[in-house]
């Protein structure tokens, strides 16, 4: 059973600019945790620290600990490639590989890591597309290019691609911000289905979305975790006055 993620005094920099200040947070296993906050508050940076994608950017730096299932992913002996294999990510803009077919997109994580057994790949592709609620729409077009799909379908393809490698955690960085309301509703429904098997952390701009899908919500402002707690409490009885101003629409 996956125990969740403990974030312990996490700080992050881009060059000399500090974008996260001693963030503490506990993410429960098999629940949806939302991170809200105004643009530029460090939401994306925070989520990118959870699978060591932050350090991909030149001159980016991190201090603090992130315990995934009790193990610090920033410990010196840990290979970031292994971390990313266990913690999947879905990005703001759908980014299927344009040179690959729908099938190959979903199988990419396995294929690029050297798994070639046809039968296994077939199974994984079908199961992942089913889980991502895309199978019925694409099952006859698996050989078509991934970029031939609509934006919402592409994003579900990216979710299928992420879950095909069977990660413990799924990080979603504003997964609906490039999508229309119908596609957004589909992704939200999908998230609720997926939390049976996955621990989900979603960054969102949209407070209604956080309120709709998540069990826990953290409010991030200028790189500080202002308030973290149950979604219902945070939205109905916020403890911090800054949280209250934000959720009542006084800034951001």
């Amino acid at each position, binding site marked *: 059973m996956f125990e969740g993620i403990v974030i312990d005094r996490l700080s992050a920099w881009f060059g000399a600019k500090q974008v996260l200040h001693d963030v503490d947070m506990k993410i429960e296993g098999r629940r949806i945790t939302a991170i809200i906050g105004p643009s530029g508050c460090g939401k994306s940076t925070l989520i990118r620290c959870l699978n060591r994608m932050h350090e991909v950017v030149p001159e980016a730096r991190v201090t603090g600990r992130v315990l995934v299932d009790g193990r610090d992913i920033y410990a010196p002996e840990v290979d970031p490639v292994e971390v990313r294999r266990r913690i999947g990510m879905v990005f703001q803009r759908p980014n299927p590989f344009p040179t690959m077919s729908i099938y190959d997109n979903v199988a990419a994580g396995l294929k690029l890591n050297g798994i070639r057994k046809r039968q296994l790949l077939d199974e994984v592709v079908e199961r992942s597309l089913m889980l991502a609620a895309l199978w019925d729409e694409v099952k006859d077009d698996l050989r078509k290019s991934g970029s031939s799909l609509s934006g919402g379908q592409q994003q579900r393809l990216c979710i299928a*691609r992420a879950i095909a490698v069977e990660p413990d955690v799924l990080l979603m960085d504003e997964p609906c911000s490039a999508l229309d309301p119908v596609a957004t509703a589909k992704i939200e429904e999908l998230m609720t289905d997926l939390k049976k098997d996955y621990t989900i952390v979603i960054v969102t701009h949209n407070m209604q979305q956080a309120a709709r899908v998540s069990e826990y919500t953290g409010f991030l402002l200028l790189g500080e975790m202002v308030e973290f707690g149950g979604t219902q409490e945070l939205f109905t009885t916020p403890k911090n006055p800054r949280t209250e101003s934000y959720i009542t629409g006084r800034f951001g």
Partner: protein
Amino acid sequence: MGRERRRQLINRLMEGLAVFSAVVTLLPLALILAFLIYQGISYINWDFFTKMPEPVGEAGGGMANGIVGTLILIGLASLIGVPVGVGAGVYVAENGHTRLAWTARFMADVLNGVPSIVVGIFAYTLMVLPMRSFSAVAGGFALGIMMIPVVLRTTEEMLKLVPTSLHEAALALGVPRWKVTVRVALRTARAGIITGIMLAVARIAGETAPLLFTAFGNQFWSIRLDEPIAAMPLQIFTYAISPYDSWHAQAWAGALVLVCLILVISVVARTAGRGRFGVVR
């Protein structure tokens, strides 16, 4: 004269100048082609491609050795230019901020501007002198060096066009960085890189100067890599400066074939670049 009229006049004048410049750009190639066809087409026949050169005074004969030699030289040059150029391009694109990348990029630009005869002298010193013989390898080496900067820069530019989001998508799947580069970035940029390679080939195919004292040319049939080898540009040069009419004819025909070869490579390169993915040159 009203301001309005004056503005329109200047507008028309400038537009005319731009159109004129565009035509002037097209003109040389059109004229060269027309002139080559006029002078050379009647000497192009099957024999030209299959027969060896005839001695002075004998009619007929062809440039089979030159054509094969040029193809061999292109092959040898690509053996050096493609792996080094693509490899360096990958390094420069992936590590753009390092001092080595900056230096490599700068040197490539300088190398691109080095007169080809100097590249020939370089190859002569490095290959011909130690081997004590002119050779196909030395010619291929000189041409290969000339390919490197072109291939490097196109590879770099094409890889830079691959969106960061694709790199991140692959990295987030737990794919090691080198595999992301090879299997995702290079694959996405493939069409553009192939275009760059073909344009580099087109560029070196007609080079004469770097071959003068490397490949040297050969009146006889030879495909040995350690011996002097014939090449079309060299043969055209030899024929053109000779006093014989029959050789002049062969030079015209050779020039026509060479220009057509380069034209075909360029056209194929431009169209091949328009793959199903949108990296277009």
